């Protein structure tokens, strides 16, 4: 899933004082939109795994494997691989691959953003979890928060300008004069995405 669309990115390029972008560049822009969206996935998920692609897309996830940790004498907590968990349909735990999966009662689950708390005894301090759930932020660009769309748009437009006009950043130093370079990500984009970075390990 891409986090912005062609029309939005073309408008962004236009608003930067550039001429209307001809439709001959549509294929290129679509490719750059995908690249920007995957860069956002990688940065925010903190992982480069097949399951970290489309990190923000709302989807039904089946039998995802992750780690859980026991809580203080009350239950256990784990963090599925989506930024928000909306519902959980099945959970099983086991201490290690040598053990059989033990199905858990999903009515004992409490959801809190991206974390799942299960009010049941843990099979160990650290254990494996197999979870089926629905999570994510949206299934289309229209569902996504405006700032995620903005970040993807700015990033895709920047990639286009770098390719088409040689856009770069510059810094002046006494020793070297003006040096041109290309930032991997604009500071504004990075600052916004920092808030969405996954804190728990994949």
């Amino acid at each position: 899933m891409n986090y912005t669309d062609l029309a939005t990115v073309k408008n962004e390029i236009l608003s930067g004082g550039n001429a209307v972008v001809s439709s001959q560049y549509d294929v290129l822009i679509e490719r750059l939109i995908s690249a920007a969206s995957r860069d956002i996935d990688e940065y925010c998920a903190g992982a480069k795994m097949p399951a970290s692609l489309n990190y923000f897309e709302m989807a039904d996830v089946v039998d995802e494997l992750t780690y859980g940790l026991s809580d203080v004498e009350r239950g256990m907590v784990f963090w599925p691989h989506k930024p928000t968990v909306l519902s959980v349909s099945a959970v099983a735990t086991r201490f290690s691959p040598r053990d059989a999966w033990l199905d858990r009662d999903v009515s004992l689950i409490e959801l809190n953003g991206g974390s799942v708390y299960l009010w049941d005894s843990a099979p160990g301090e650290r254990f494996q979890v197999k979870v089926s759930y629905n999570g994510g932020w949206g299934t289309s660009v229209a569902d996504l928060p405006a700032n995620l769309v903005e970040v993807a748009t700015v990033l895709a437009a920047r990639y286009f300008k770098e390719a088409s006009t040689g856009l770069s950043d510059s810094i002046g130093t006494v020793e070297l004069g003006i040096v041109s370079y290309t930032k991997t990500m604009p500071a504004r984009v990075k600052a916004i995405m920092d808030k969405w970075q996954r804190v728990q390990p994949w």
Partner: protein
Amino acid sequence: MITVAHCAGSFAKVVEKSSGVKPTTFPPMDATTLDLSGLRGADLWYIDLHGEHGNPAWFGDNGVAAMYAGQVAASELHGVNVFASNCFLGDDDSPMMKALFKAGARSVIAAPGKNFSPIDGPLYGAALVGLWVRRLLSIGSTPDNALRTALTRIAVEIEFNRSSGRQDLLDANQDAMEFKVFYK
């Protein structure tokens, strides 16, 4: 994950629970019998000793000197993350903090001023932060992310404490929110 723990004798039960390993305790050990060679190759050094503001030493029970800054600085801590509930380690210009970094510590998780932990029973305060930090490091969290998530768990505990009316636990857990990750 290899964890090594050192603590005051009276903290042994709680430190074993939060660090997940049997700690070396002071007493019976003291600064003259101290051996930090086991820290080489460790992933986490978990410490719960008494600290004083500006004092280049940590202490066990009854004021026994457990280790001096010079001994810590001479140890091999390259690549080791340190979690310490020792009081005053997170203060500005802490001589023990400098010693840890001189020894090559990768990161130090500590708090300024006094810290509070139980000596028995359910974990709270600094010991609870230590428990979560260790567990999260064991599943691959970075020190920053481990502490961030640990403090989220402490915040949940604070809500429990509020509803249960346990002011002592509430105070200790609120104080524990001051833990930070320090880098050289």
